[in-house]
């Protein structure tokens, strides 16, 4: 068990300094947190809208789709920059 921990640490230290990895990890976590909250709110608003007017279900779902994509794009950009911190 202990030698497995030592192996993981040796793999980690060879990439970048420990603080860079910590920063990357915290960054990834925060980015996912933001994405989860945002997309959850979008989903909730879509559900509320459809509940109020079931006939317009298709139109209601189409608008937020693009916003969800843009939000996901922002999350991926944050993740790519976190990867950059690990590699540099």
């Amino acid at each position, binding site marked *: *068990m202990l*030698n*497995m921990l030592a*192996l993981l640490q040796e*793999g980690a230290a060879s*990439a970048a300094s420990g603080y860079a990895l910590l920063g990357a990890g915290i960054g990834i976590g925060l980015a996912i947190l933001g994405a989860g909250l945002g997309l959850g709110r979008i989903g909730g608003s879509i559900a509320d809208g459809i509940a109020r007017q079931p006939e317009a279900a298709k139109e209601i779902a189409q608008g937020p789709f*693009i916003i969800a*994509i*843009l939000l*996901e*794009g*922002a999350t*991926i*950009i944050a*993740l*790519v920059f976190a990867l950059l911190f690990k590699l540099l």
Partner: protein
Amino acid sequence: MTETQGTDINIGEIVLHHTSDAYAIDFEPFGTISWHKWPDVHLGSLTLNLTPTKHVVFMILAAVLVLLVMWITKRGLIKQRAHQQAPTGFAGFMEQMVLWVRDDIAIANIGENGKKFAPFIVALFFFVLFMNLLGLLPWGATATGNLAVTGALALMVFVVVEIGGFLKLGPKGYLGTIFPHFEGVGGVGGAVLTVAMAPIEILSKLVKPFALAVRLFGNMTAGHFVVLSLAGIILFFGNWLIGIPTAVVIALIYLLETLVAGLQAYVFALLASTFIGLMQTEHH
């Protein structure tokens, strides 16, 4: 815990080796095709390295496959129309997909000029889709998992958006997209506001294609990172108890990857047409 086998497995190296570009194509147990760097091409003071890499080979393969599929569709449709038949079979399926991209992505978002930009959007969609899907085949490499490839595609979208806007709006109208004119704010205040908004407008013109490039790159690469890391875990622990559930997880994530491949091609085409459409209707 028994001693772990394969402690010389470096998961990071496995992940990076399979997702990055190289002058080699791996067919893992069967060998590797590799080639040397070609001599640099000098154009004046510019030095170019024009060696084809693994991602270049797969880009060419995707382009050839798109050409082939569309050619077969064309032949099939010509034959079916000559016999006054409704489109069926493979040609019918591909015609439906192309019409879906043209109608629901290009024309719906660009407006009345949609038909002029439709060939570009259709080509973009199918090229990106085929590149994404080729990366999921055995021994395949994802060409869109390379920031240079997605950057080049985003650069093309940028050029089309800006030049399309310039041709549609004229020089004065195009400057109006950089120096926005605000109704109802008169005189000096309006002028100051317009000049202050100019850097923001220019920044927004540049950020949108940048986000397109990084979005496609990140989505494709992240999926492959997950699959390769899980495969590395199987190799690292080297026993069946951990290997079999992990293999099931890999299979499920692979299905998600296929969905993401199609979705990201759709998103790229959709956002490209949205940007073109925004530019075309910019006059207030």
